[in-house]
């Protein structure tokens, strides 16, 4: 089908044809087309099958909002064909019809099921017998619904960027009112962001022949510094923040003032056959003709109950579209427009509305008649052949964002609208959303809202305020003078011969369904919505809420305002979940030695935020190598803090339950951190580097929270202390095993003898030319040295030590080694209830010291009180390794749990740690472990399994 003659308001570029496919057939469109406009131009009228009855459906809105245009694009379902810009090579397919759009077997529900499938029918009918419901449900779920996810879908990654934009004024909606508001606010000096969902701002101006004006206004906005976000949807209003989705970006627009200029949505009419392809909104027909140069039909009939429909009909005539007839429910008014329409060749039918549409697979004719107050046709009316019916059933303000911001919607009888009354400070409405629909009042309304927003923020001067007041006075005049009468369409206009008249096209809800639901007692709008599912479809009531309210008002006899609207919730626009989920924010930390581990074939796993070498193939052998010779492990993940200052020792004394002020220079002490309630939160080592400087290590997982804990108390106490977190700047390697002294001695000039460098001593020195802080500590239970060095030197140090004969070992081997010594892992062997006393670490609590350290008072309360559980070691004589977390049971009682368990290759035993009842926390006690189907006997051992006297580690 050819396009209309070119004119500057068109969006398409005829010099750039694009090829795409629909259901396997090749089609051609132009750059600037939407999928729907290109298909419409090539003669496609049926775009989808409906939700429940699988009726053929055509395009309605041509602005990307209705559910009729849902198609599948390149495998992704749920794309709105009339809003999605056409791209070359798109593979477009219909959805919700099988085997084809033209012949859908499920359409049988329409023919035969129609009268028998009122709301709730499926649930009521198939609920008995109860046990068969899952079977029914599977079938029914397949029968209903929109689209289907493909079995296999090409993996798509959402590359969503997050953006935060703070501004003075955010204008939501880029129609005449929105542009005017943005321009005025920017002229007064405000930083303004304008959000518009179309490809260019202008709103209705673009289709109504005012594109030049729209473009001029947009250009002036840009000149005044307004940031215009086009093709962007405002998803919701959240306490002064508007989430805006624009392509690959999710932008949080935070403004001191918001202006909602979201416009009003033209509404359909309810009559039998109102869902036939060819029935569309008058604005949709106009957009199709004006923006895409496509005649909506050979012969167009317009049915309206407001001035807007007449205006659109005139615009259509102006674009060369043949308008056969215009039915206006109002008997009088707007005579000037009617005269011009007549002059253009249209037959005017005043006081009449459409009572039936007929056609097979598409509209062929409509019947227009006078109707009584209940919508019943008086007389036979006129039947007019046509292939397009453009309807205007009034408009519904797109007030969702305002309502989310706390506005209340009140029904204005004269305006025949639910108009939002802004309530929250900081957000105002402008233009059609607050009832200022015609261009004159829309511009004034926007300009005033923009000025007032800027003025409220301190921009502009007295004369600007005066100007705004003058504009407000003019607006009042315009509103008073220009009010054209409106008439509410009947809830259902019909010739009385049956047939489905849809209130909600998305969900296939008919006027009869709403009546049926009301008769069953679902007579409030919220209940009616949930029972009939009207307004719950993909277009979220944009084109059905008003009709649903009207139908319920008709049924209950209540006025519209009393029926009310359902709650407005975000998101206002449909948004893919992937955009909201966004780019995964995983901070993957890798140590400076990560590359080396990979080269060694390490099995790398997550450990908190870190990627760590779990093992290098055989953890048991790695553990044995540490016992027999020497091993080295990357412990760069340890938290490392430098605490420095005149009051550093005071600070640490207040944080740790043991005394740190008595720590001598060059010595190391184990320290446990407790909360004020005396619960273990972390542990680590504290090394005194000099009088004022301490080097504190924390667990790998606790680095962040310990730093926060320290700085929290530092802020509170305001001591003369500075805190530096060097976790990510310092690498650490643990060299452990009987040969470690010999290896170290070869690489350093330091005296490594046990006398010169004893257990828990720290030294500064060079190892293989690398400046190191050497800590002689032994988490593994063997003689060992932790070498802390600058990141840049870590590989060099690692390589030299490995070359000297130390075998790399991973996290798993370390866990075996530490378990042999019953060294706890905070979080693994402790929980939120563990205290130093219950964790067998009472020796690290010094209640003799003066400072009232964090947790002191709670720990004092606990001294001498038997804790509910104690942490003890156990050996499974049968050699089983229970699952960590398995229950300790006595009879039928759960008395504790296994916290760690491993097979120790060195000891040839299965060992573990467990929290047990105090009575069981004695050497030799037997405990029973219930591990799923297994019952495992174990013997309690309170002393370390390996080197219980600690001679090895000190040697």
């Amino acid at each position: 089908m050819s396009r209309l003659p070119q004119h500057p308001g068109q969006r398409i570029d005829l010099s750039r044809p694009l090829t795409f496919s629909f259901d396997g057939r090749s089609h051609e469109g132009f750059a600037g087309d939407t999928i729907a406009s290109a298909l419409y131009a090539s003669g496609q009228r049926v775009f989808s099958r409906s939700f429940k009855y699988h009726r053929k459906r055509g395009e309605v809105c041509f602005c990307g909002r209705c559910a009729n245009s849902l198609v599948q694009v390149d495998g992704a379902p749920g794309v709105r064909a009339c809003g999605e810009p056409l791209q070359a090579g798109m593979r477009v397919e219909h959805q919700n019809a099988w085997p084809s759009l033209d012949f859908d077997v499920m359409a049988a529900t329409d023919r035969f099921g129609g009268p028998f499938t009122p709301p709730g029918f499926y649930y009521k009918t198939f609920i008995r017998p109860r046990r068969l419901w899952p079977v029914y449900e599977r079938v029914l779920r397949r029968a209903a619904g929109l689209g289907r996810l493909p079995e296999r879908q090409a993996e798509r990654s959402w590359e969503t960027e997050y953006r935060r934009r703070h501004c003075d004024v955010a204008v939501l909606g880029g129609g005449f009112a929105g542009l005017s508001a943005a321009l005025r606010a920017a002229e007064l000096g405000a930083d303004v962001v304008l959000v518009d969902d179309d490809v260019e701002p202008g709103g209705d101006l673009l289709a109504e022949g005012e594109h030049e004006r729209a473009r001029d206004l947009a250009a002036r906005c840009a000149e005044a510094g307004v940031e215009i976000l086009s093709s962007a949807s405002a998803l919701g209003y959240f306490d002064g923040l508007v989430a805006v989705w624009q392509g690959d970006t999710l932008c949080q627009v935070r403004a001191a003032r918001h202006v909602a200029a979201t416009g009003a949505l033209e509404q359909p009419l309810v009559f039998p056959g109102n869902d036939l392809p060819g029935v569309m909104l008058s604005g949709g027909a106009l957009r199709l003709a004006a923006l895409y140069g496509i005649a909506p039909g050979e012969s167009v009939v317009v049915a309206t109950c407001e001035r807007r429909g007449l205006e659109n009909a005139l615009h259509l005539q102006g674009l060369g579209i043949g308008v056969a007839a215009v039915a206006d429910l109002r008997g009088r008014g707007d005579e000037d427009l009617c005269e011009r329409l007549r002059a253009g060749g249209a037959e005017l039918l005043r006081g009449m509305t459409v009572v039936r549409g007929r056609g097979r697979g598409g509209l062929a004719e409509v019947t227009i008649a006078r109707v009584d107050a209940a919508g019943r046709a008086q007389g036979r009316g006129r039947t007019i052949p046509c292939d397009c019916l453009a309807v205007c059933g009034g408009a519904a303000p797109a007030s969702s964002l305002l309502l989310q911001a706390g506005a209340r919607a009140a029904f204005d009888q004269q305006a025949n609208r639910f108009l939002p009354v802004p309530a929250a400070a900081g957000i105002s409405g402008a233009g059609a959303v607050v009832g200022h629909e015609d261009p004159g009042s829309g511009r004034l309304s926007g300009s005033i809202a923009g000025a007032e927003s800027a003025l409220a923020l301190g921009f502009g001067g007295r004369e600007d305020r005066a100007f705004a007041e003058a504009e407000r006075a003019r607006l009042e005049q315009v509103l008073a003078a220009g009010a054209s009468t409106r008439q509410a369409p009947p809830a259902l206009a019909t010739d009385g011969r049956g047939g489905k008249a849809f209130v909600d096209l998305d969900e296939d809800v008919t006027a009869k369904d709403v009546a049926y639901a009301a008769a069953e007692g679902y007579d409030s709008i919220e209940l009616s919505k949930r029972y009939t599912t009207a307004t719950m479809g993909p277009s979220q009531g944009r084109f059905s809420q008003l009709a649903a309210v009207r139908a319920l008002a008709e049924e209950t006899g209540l006025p519209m305002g009393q029926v009310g609207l359902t709650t407005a919730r975000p998101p206002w626009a449909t948004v893919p979940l992937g955009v909201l989920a966004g780019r995964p924010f995983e901070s993957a930390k890798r140590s400076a030695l990560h590359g080396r581990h990979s080269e060694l074939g390490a099995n790398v796993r997550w450990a908190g935020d870190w990627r760590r070498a779990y093992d290098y193939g055989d953890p048991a052998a790695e553990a044995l190598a540490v016992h027999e010779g020497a091993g080295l492990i990357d412990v760069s993940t340890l938290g490392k803090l430098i605490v420095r200052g005149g009051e550093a020792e005071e600070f640490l004394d207040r944080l740790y339950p043991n005394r740190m002020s008595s720590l001598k220079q060059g010595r190391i002490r184990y320290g446990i951190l407790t909360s004020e309630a005396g619960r273990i939160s972390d542990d680590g080592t504290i090394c005194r580097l000099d009088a004022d400087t301490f080097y504190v290590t924390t667990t790998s997982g606790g680095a962040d929270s310990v730093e926060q804990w320290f700085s929290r108390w530092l802020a509170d106490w305001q001591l003369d202390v500075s805190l530096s977190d060097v976790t990510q700047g310092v690498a650490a390697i643990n060299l452990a095993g009987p040969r470690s002294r010999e290896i170290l001695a070869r690489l350093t000039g330091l005296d490594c003898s046990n006398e010169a460098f004893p257990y828990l001593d720290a030294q500064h020195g060079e190892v293989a030319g690398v400046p190191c802080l050497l800590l002689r500590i032994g988490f593994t239970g063997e003689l060992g040295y932790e070498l802390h060095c600058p990141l840049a030197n870590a590989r060099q140090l690692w390589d030299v030590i490995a070359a000297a004969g130390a075998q790399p070992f991973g996290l798993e081997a370390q866990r075996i080694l530490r378990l042999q010594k019953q060294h706890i892992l905070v979080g693994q062997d402790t929980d939120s209830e563990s205290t130093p006393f219950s964790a067998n670490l009472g020796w690290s609590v010094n209640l003799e010291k003066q400072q009232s350290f964090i947790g002191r008072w709670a720990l004092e309360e606990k001294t001498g009180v038997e804790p509910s559980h104690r942490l003890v070691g156990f050996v499974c004589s049968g050699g089983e390794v229970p699952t960590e977390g398995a229950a300790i049971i006595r009879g039928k009682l759960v008395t504790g749990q296994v916290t760690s368990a491993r097979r120790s290759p060195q000891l040839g035993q299965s060992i573990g740690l467990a929290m047990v009842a105090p009575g069981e926390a004695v050497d030799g006690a037997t405990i029973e472990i219930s591990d799923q189907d297994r019952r495992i006997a174990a013997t309690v051992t309170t002393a370390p399994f390996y080197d219980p006297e600690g001679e090895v580690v000190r040697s």
Partner: protein
Amino acid sequence: MSFLLDCPNCGAREVTDFGFGGEASSRPTSKPLRRELNRYLYVRRNVAGRQREWWVHRLGCRQWFLAERDTRTNEVIWTALPADAPVPGEVDAANVGGEGR
């Protein structure tokens, strides 16, 4: 929930950049009675109104600071480093009406 906090170091940032440290309470200066300790550990005033509280600029400078915020509206009245913060007594006296009981 969404609002801005003025980090004394970095300036206004989204609340999601911060960590909440709970309502500010003063730590007993000497050993409390068991009842006092219990209150200190477990009882919060949970004010419906203006509240003095701790915040940390988690995704920024990591500085802890104090803020006064209306828990009903999320209006932030002030933020300050502890050394610059108003003395609690003064603030409380000025906002007696805001505190729910």
